[in-house]
């Protein structure tokens, strides 16, 4: 018994040792770091990590404090996102949050950050409803789906010549929202929507709905969802011998899509992305070099993780003290922010005015930039 107590105490002592260091400022980072979408989350996290590392190397953000990134895993699950948000909100050292990834997580979490007067910068959650809630704590550095959906519809109709379209989504805040925007714009442009159905995230067998689509023989399948389901869809589409073209949203922009689907099945699919080709942006050149030196090939969302974290750091630097309200008012004072993706000007809802939507295709197992629209 004595020995057990001793062991217990030595363990406690070991763990408590971590807490005794210089004063810290924390930036929360939330994304799916486990589960099927972990590849997306990891892309974001690396960008955020690099931003913190570079800022630290340049000297303290606020004299006397060191800044640390606190990664939290929401596993793309809204319930887990809310509990993670509550944990960050309850930690007085947290001055800003970068996240979440999925709109279905960002939306409920934003209410908690708003209540805690905590600055939230969303890197890639593109559902327009989030900023329409009117939270002054919410900022977003990517274009929204009321831009992405119509851009996708324009591309489908004008460039791919699609007249008869079947629409699938993954029934999430993001997927359903984007699909509705697409359908609205496509109908307005005269395309015929043969059907609009939802699939369930995490399931594997989409052959029944694809067989049904085969019977309708559309020109194009539009899918608003994420890459794990997209990989299965294009693969099962190939097996069923469905010839329709395939267009998806930015949730497909992830190298793992091609690995999981096989390059043969992914060949020739199209997807829209938030922002254009980052490799054509002179402002992003240094970032890409530093990133690829540290981590290897650039992840699709990494630049957004980097940009959002840098913006949070800028707000903290301008606040000059460890206070959430000071950070919020400093953020409000940032009229123009020159980032690697361009110069962000935020509208009254906290959305960026950078509104470029890109289009990519897959060729020989690689994403290839097609065009960008404003």
């Amino acid at each position, binding site marked *: 018994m004595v020995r057990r107590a001793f062991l217990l105490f030595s363990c406690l002592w070991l763990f408590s040792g971590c807490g005794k260091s210089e004063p810290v400022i924390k930036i929360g980072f939330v994304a799916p*770091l*486990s*589960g*099927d979408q*972990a*590849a997306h989350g990891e892309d974001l996290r690396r960008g955020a990590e690099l931003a913190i590392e570079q800022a630290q190397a340049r000297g303290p953000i606020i004299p006397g404090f060191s800044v640390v990134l606190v990664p939290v895993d929401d596993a793309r699950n809204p319930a887990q996102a809310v509990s993670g948000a509550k944990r960050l909100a309850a930690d007085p050292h947290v001055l800003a949050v970068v996240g979440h990834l999925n709109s279905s997580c960002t939306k409920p979490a934003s209410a908690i950050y708003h209540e805690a007067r905590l600055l939230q910068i969303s890197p890639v959650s593109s559902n327009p409803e989030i900023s329409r809630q009117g939270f002054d704590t919410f900022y977003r550095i990517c274009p929204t789906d009321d831009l992405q959906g119509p851009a996708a519809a324009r591309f489908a109709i004008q460039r791919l010549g699609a007249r008869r379209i079947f629409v*699938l989504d993954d*029934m999430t805040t993001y997927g359903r929202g984007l699909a509705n925007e697409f359908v609205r714009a496509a109908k307005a442009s005269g395309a015929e929507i043969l059907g609009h*159905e*939802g*699939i*369930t995230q*995490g*399931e*594997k*067998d*989409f*052959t*029944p*709905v694809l*067989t*049904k689509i*085969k*019977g309708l023989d559309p020109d194009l399948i539009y899918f608003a969802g994420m890459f*794990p389901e997209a*990989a*299965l869809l294009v*693969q099962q589409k*190939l*097996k*069923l*011998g469905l010839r329709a073209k395939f267009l998806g949203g930015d949730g497909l922009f992830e190298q*793992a899509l091609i*690995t*999981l689907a*096989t390059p043969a099945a992914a060949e020739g699919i199209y997807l829209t992305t938030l922002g254009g080709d980052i490799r054509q942006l002179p402002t992003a050149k240094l970032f890409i070099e530093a990133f690829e030196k540290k981590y290897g090939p650039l992840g699709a969302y990494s630049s957004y993780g980097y940009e959002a974290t840098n913006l949070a750091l800028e707000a903290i630097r301008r606040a000059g003290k460890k206070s959430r309200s000071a950070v919020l008012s400093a953020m409000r004072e940032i009229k123009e922010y020159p980032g690697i993706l361009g110069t962000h000007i935020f509208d009254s809802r906290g959305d960026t005015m950078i509104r470029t939507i890109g289009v990519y295709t897959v060729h020989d197992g690689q994403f290839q930039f097609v065009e960008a629209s404003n």
Partner: protein
Amino acid sequence: MSAGDLFLQQVLNGLTLGFVYALIALGYTMVYGIIQLINFAHGEVFMVGAYAGLTVLLMIGGQGSAAGLVAALGAAAVVCLLLGLAIERVAYRPLRSAPKLSALISAIGVSFILQNAVMLVYGAQDRYVPAALPASGWKFGAVTVTPMQAVIFGVSIALMVGLQALVYGTRLGRNMRATAQDPLAARLMGISVERVIASTFAIGSALAGIGGVLFGTYYSTINFHDGYLTGLKAFTAAVLGGIGNVPGALLGGVLLGLLEGLAAGYLSAQWKNVVAFAVLVLVLLLRPRGLLGERVAERA
């Protein structure tokens, strides 16, 4: 494609998934039949089987072959058989005389442990499973049966026939049936009940392992939480067919697969689970013990 061809294709889609459900459902039904335990870790055993198969296919390298698939199926069966034995020994046997609820909680605990262990070893992301067999298949009109689908049908039917023969034609099978009817009386007749229970876990787990490999190679991606949803569906299949009943597991699996496939194909993909589970509720209202459930011996 004509409406008839589409229907045949939908039936084929449903049957393929249904046979995989049936293979997993057997494990639920056998364990329940013997000790009235819902082994919630069974879905995770299925998932471990899929990963064991993946490991073998990766070791063989490149695009797999028929021999690779056989090796993967064998390895997964052995790994899951041992895993099933270990789970029974560690998580259930010490609780044999405890209230039923304790074993249920223990089962949920084992399922978390297995999920997280696989996540730590193989990573949290989806893994691509190399195709073991060519994608080109045999054409029947406008419907194509792929070699992998043929393997799923063949292996599942062979295993179920074998299992039926084992239960009704061997000494072990007789002991299993005796234990299911009354463990105390079986023990009095000199049957080693513990050994029978362990064998049941071993056989059920090996079948789940084989199901895991078939599932992984057919759908080509696996994830550490795949055991949850598929396990839940297989459990449903077991209940639908009449839990505790071996042919019931086959019937329930095939029926659930067909229901899901046809509901997604003809009604709406987002309502397919609602339709499948509504039918389950209906069946249970009319036949509370499942479709073939009445054959289960009533315990005193």
